[in-house]
Each structure stands twice: as C-alpha cells, then as structure tokens.
C-alpha cells in the first residue's frame, strides 16, 4: 500500500540540547551545527547561542591579555561598522580573563563592539564555558583568537583560527552568507 506523504525540507534544525563529548573534542567544524552554550550580556542577563536562531552570528573569542587578539580588534570593529545589518549579530566573548578586564580594555580604546561575558571566571579556567545544562564544555577553543560565522540555520559556515590582518576583506564573505541564508531560511 502506498502512503502519500509530503516532504518538507528542514531549514532549521534546533541546536543540540547538550554538547556531546566527541564533538567537544574535535571542536567546532565548518559545516557542523554550532553547539549551544550560555553566556551573559553586560547587564548580566543570560543568553544562549540558540537565542540567535534565524540570525547570522559573527562569533569571536578573544582576550585582552592576548596580543594577537588585541591587534585585530580595530579590524573587527571596522568590519562591524561596515556590515551594519540588524540581521547580523556580532558576539565577542572573553576567554580566560575577568569580564571587567575585557570591558575596561574596550572602553578605554573607544571600541563599540558588542562584548559578552563568557563567564570564564578568570584565568585558571581552561574549560570556561558551559552548555545549556550547565556542563562545562571542554571543546577545542583553547586558542584565541578564534572566529566563527554561523548562518541562520545554526551551521558553521566560516571558521578562522588565529588572527587575521585584514578583516574588512571578509565583508564580502559575510554578505554571501546573508544572501545564501536568505534562500534557505523562510
């Protein structure tokens, strides 16, 4: 007996509820769904990566103690200002240092980049972040800076390990992600 069925393409897959350890060990690969995790706004409100479902996320891990990270912040700021699109969220997360230190560094230099608290809690935290269940994430983000672009479907479409000297050249890359995502996301 034949059963009629319609196939609806899945354009959005929910973020995994819990990061499995194998994914954690291999880190975030291009083409994978970005694992969900928690962080905080400057006002200490809790956020999750999955809160940005439907948007494109430029996710950047950095620390003011890290010279290569500091070196590229002006470039990222320039990219941020050039993109200027409400559909794209820039999320900069501090690693291995107190959030106040990261904030003070940005403020002193007059950067407007949206920074968030990874809740790393200080320099001894080598596995600082937690998944949505509060489990610590031992994934391969130990090196900073590290950058990901996550599309509207939660897929990692771009990954950069280490610093870039010319972030403004990525304007086109990100614009392409916007264009591609518009076709995929209703």
């Amino acid at each position, binding site marked *: 007996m034949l059963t009629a069925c319609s196939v609806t393409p899945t354009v959005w897959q929910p973020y995994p509820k819990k990061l499995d350890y194998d994914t954690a060990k291999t880190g975030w690969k291009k083409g994978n769904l970005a694992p969900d995790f928690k962080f905080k706004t400057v006002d200490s409100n809790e956020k999750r990566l999955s809160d940005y479902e439907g948007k494109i996320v430029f996710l950047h891990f950095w620390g003011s103690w890290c010279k*290569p990270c500091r070196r590229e912040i002006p470039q990222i700021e320039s990219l941020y200002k050039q993109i200027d699109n409400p559909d794209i969220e820039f999320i900069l997360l501090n690693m291995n240092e107190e959030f106040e230190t990261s904030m003070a560094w940005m403020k002193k230099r007059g950067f407007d980049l949206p920074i968030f608290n990874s809740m790393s809690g200080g*320099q001894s935290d*080598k596995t600082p972040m937690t998944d949505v269940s509060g489990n610590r994430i031992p994934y391969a983000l*130990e090196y900073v800076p590290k950058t990901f672009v996550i599309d509207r479907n939660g897929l990692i479409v771009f990954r950069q390990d280490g*610093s870039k000297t010319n972030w403004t050249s990525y304007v086109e890359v990100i614009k392409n992600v916007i264009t591609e995502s518009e076709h995929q996301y209703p």
Partner: protein
Amino acid sequence: MLKLLTLTLLVTTLNQSVLAEMQNIEKEPLLVKTKWLNYDKLQLKLQASNQAKISLESGFLIEALDKSEIIWSPVLPHKFKFGKGYLMSEKVILEAKLPDNPYNTGLRITYGYCPSEDMCKYQSVDLLIPPKQEI
C-alpha cells in the same frame, strides 16, 4: 674499532639528549625553579624556554594541590601580574605563600602562551613542591 663505538655511543647519547631537550621545549614553554625561603614562602623562578612567548599580561595563576582531597586551590597572592609584553630571556621571581598544609604536594602554574604571532592559549605546568628540609 673501540674509538668508533665510543664515538657512535657519544653521538647517540648527544642525539637523545638534544631530542629530550627539544621535546621538553615543545612540551613545556615555561621553565620553573623552586626554593623555600622560609616555612611558608616558596620562591619560584620563571623563565621562558627557548624564547617561547609567554604573556606577562595574562599573569600567572599558582595553585597548590592538596593530595588528601585532590583539590587545587590558589596560593597567595591569587594572581601574579608583571606588566606588558612577553617573558623572554629574563627571569621572573615570584614569592608564593603556601598554606601550612603537609598534604600540599604539587603546584600548578597557569599562564598565557603564544606559540605563534597569530594565537595564544592558556596552559599549565605541574611541579612537585620541594621538601621543606631543603630550606
């Protein structure tokens, strides 16, 4: 023949020694020497191995291991900071105040290490606390 054997052995030993040193450098960019100054103060001399770029801005976090409970806890002061740039050829001398706990057997130093011009990471080196009779 004996000379050749001796020479071969010497070269092998040297190669092993060089290899061991290289592995050590590869493995641990921070070299640490410890010495008790008095009953609760431990002097730590930190030096970068082979010009490894160790961030001074990240500071150094030192924790002691209580082997009875297998707990790492920070020693005083909680964070050692030394200004800007990298720990290169010079040594940094710290004085860490350790709790008077006979079960404290190990130290862990966490620091920022930049293996290239493009990235940095946090990593730790674990070492044994020297016995106090060596004061």
